[in-house]
C-alpha cells in the first residue's frame, strides 16, 4: 500500500467522520428521476407466452429490471477499461466523468404506467487556472463542459423530460475549512496511521473503533474550522427534451453557495435545525451513539438568471409566436443527511427543490402554465447504490406535473 494512499485515506476518513461518508456526503443532489417505459412489444410477447403469472412476472422483472441493464453495462465496459488497450483510453477518459443511474419507475399520471430509464451526468473541466494565488484561500477560474438529464426508453412517459448540455466559465473559492496558521502534522505522523485498507469503498468508511483512527480524528479536529465555498460564473447551455423536438438555449449568470461546519463543536453544527429530525433518527436507530446534529447537512444553494431563446420550444411557440429571448430566474436547494444504519451500512435521505420562473411572462404563456416550473425530488439511498425516489412537479418542457415513484441503482466508471 502506498504511503500516499494512506495519507489520502486518513484525510478522507477525517472528512467522512464529520461529513458522514465521503461520496455520499458529496452527492447531495438527487438528480431528477430518470423514468422510461418498458419495451411494449417485448412485454407483449412475454404476456402472450403460456406461463403462470408468477413466472411471467419473474421473467418480466428479469428482462426489464434496472439491475439487468446495470449488469450488462458493467460487463460490457469493465473489460474494455481493464484491457489497457490504447484504443480504449479515450473512451475511458470520457466515461470516467460519466455517472449513470438506471431506474424503474411508476408515474401517477400517464395512467400509472411503469417504465425504465436512465439518468446521466457528465462534467469535464476543460481548462482552469489559479487566478489569485493566496496561500490560504486561492481563487480559481475554470471552464467546464457539462451534460445531464433523463432518458426514458419510451419517450412518451418520461415525466422529467429535460436534458441540459452546455459550457460554464466560473470563479470559485473555498474560504476557511482549515486553521491557516496550524503547523502541518507531517507525513511521519501519518505513516503510522495505516489502520485500514485503502480499498475500502468511500461509501463504507465506518470503522470508528480503531484507537489510532480516533486519535487522528481528535488531532485533526483541533485545526478544523467552518468552510464557506462560493462559485459564480456564466453559462451557455442547450436545454431540450430527449428527442430534441423541443429545445431552447439559455445563457446567463450563476451563483452557488455551500457552507460546511466540519467541526462538531461549530455553532453551525450544533444549531443546524435542518438536521435535528435526522439526528434524532440516527440516535434512535443506533447509527449515532449520541444525539449529534451534523454541520455538513446544511442546505446548499444555487441559482441564476438566464436569457432563454425559445427558438425550438414548440409548446411555447404555439401560444406565443415570438422567438425573442426572455429572462428567467431559477434556483435550487439541496439537502442531504444520514438517517440510519442498516446491517452496518449507512442509509441517506436527500432532497432537492428546483424552481424556474419566467420574468414578466406574456399572459398567454402564464395562462398555459408555461411560465413557472417547480420540481421536488426526495431520495432514500443505501450504500450499495440502491435507492428509492419520490418526485413531484415538472421541469421546463414538461406540460403537466407528475408524481413519480422510482427504484434505482447507481453505476459509475
Amino acid at each position, binding site marked *: 500500500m502506498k504511503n500516499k*494512499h494512506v495519507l489520502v485515506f486518513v484525510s478522507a476518513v477525517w*472528512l467522512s467522520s464529520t461529513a458522514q461518508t465521503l*461520496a455520499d456526503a458529496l452527492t447531495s443532489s438527487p438528480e431528477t428521476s430518470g423514468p422510461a417505459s418498458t419495451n411494449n412489444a417485448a412485454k407483449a410477447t412475454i404476456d402472450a407466452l403460456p406461463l403462470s403469472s408468477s413466472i411471467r412476472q419473474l421473467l418480466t422483472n428479469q428482462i426489464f429490471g434496472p439491475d439487468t441493464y446495470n449488469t450488462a453495462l458493467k460487463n460490457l465496459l469493465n473489460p474494455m477499461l481493464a484491457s489497457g488497450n490504447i484504443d480504449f483510453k479515450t473512451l475511458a477518459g470520457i466515461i470516467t466523468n460519466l455517472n449513470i443511474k438506471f431506474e424503474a419507475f411508476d408515474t401517477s399520471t400517464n395512467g400509472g404506467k411503469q417504465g425504465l430509464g436512465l439518468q446521466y451526468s457528465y462534467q469535464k473541466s476543460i481548462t482552469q487556472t489559479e487566478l489569485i494565488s493566496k496561500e490560504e484561500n486561492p481563487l*480559481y477560474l475554470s471552464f467546464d463542459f457539462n451534460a445531464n438529464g433523463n432518458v426514458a426508453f419510451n419517450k412518451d412517459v418520461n415525466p422529467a423530460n429535460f436534458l441540459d448540455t452546455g459550457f460554464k466559465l466560473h470563479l470559485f473559492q473555498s474560504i476557511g475549512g482549515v486553521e491557516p496558521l496550524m503547523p502541518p502534522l507531517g*507525513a511521519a505522523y501519518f505513516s503510522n496511521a495505516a489502520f485500514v485498507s485503502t480499498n475500502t469503498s*468511500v461509501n463504507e468508511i465506518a470503522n470508528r473503533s480503531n484507537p489510532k483512527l480516533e486519535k487522528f480524528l481528535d488531532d485533526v479536529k483541533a485545526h478544523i474550522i467552518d468552510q464557506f465555498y462560493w462559485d459564480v460564473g456564466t453559462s451557455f447551455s442547450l436545454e431540450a427534451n430527449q428527442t430534441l423536438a423541443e429545445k431552447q438555449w439559455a445563457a446567463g449568470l450563476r451563483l452557488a453557495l455551500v457552507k460546511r461546519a466540519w467541526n462538531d463543536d461549530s455553532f453551525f453544527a450544533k444549531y443546524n435545525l435542518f438536521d435535528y429530525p435526522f439526528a434524532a433518527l440516527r440516535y434512535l436507530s443506533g447509527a449515532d451513539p449520541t444525539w449529534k446534529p451534523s454541520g455538513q447537512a446544511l442546505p446548499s444553494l444555487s441559482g441564476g438568471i438566464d436569457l432563454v431563446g425559445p427558438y425550438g420550444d414548440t409548446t411555447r411557440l404555439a401560444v406565443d409566436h415570438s422567438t425573442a429571448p426572455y429572462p428567467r430566474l431559477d434556483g435550487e436547494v439541496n439537502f442531504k443527511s444520514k438517517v440510519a444504519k442498516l446491517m452496518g451500512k449507512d442509509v441517506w435521505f436527500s432532497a432537492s427543490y428546483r424552481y424556474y420562473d419566467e420574468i414578466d411572462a406574456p399572459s398567454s404563456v402564464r395562462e398555459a402554465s408555461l411560465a413557472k416550473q417547480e420540481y421536488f425530488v426526495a431520495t432514500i439511498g443505501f450504500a450499495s447504490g440502491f435507492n428509492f425516489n419520490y418526485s413531484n412537479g415538472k421541469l421546463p418542457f414538461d406540460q403537466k406535473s407528475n408524481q413519480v415513484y422510482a427504484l434505482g441503482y447507481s453505476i459509475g466508471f
Partner: protein
Amino acid sequence: MQQIIANAMAAQLDKMFRFVVGASYANNGAPATAGAAPVTGATAIPAMSVVLANSTKTLTDLAEVVDGFYIFN
C-alpha cells in the same frame, strides 16, 4: 449542483493535504509535461472532484488521482 458540492469538498481536501498533512504540489507547481497546465489547486481540485462526485468510486481511485498532484514528504 452535485458537482459544485464535490468541488467544495475537493477544495477542502486540497487544504487538508497542504495545511494538515504538509503536502506540496507535484513538480513544484510547474507543468508536469511541456504544454500541460501547472500543477496547482486549479488542476488538482477538478480532478479530485470528478472522483468525489461519483459514489461508486473507492478511496484507491481518489488516491490514484492525488498521487499525480501532490508530494507527501
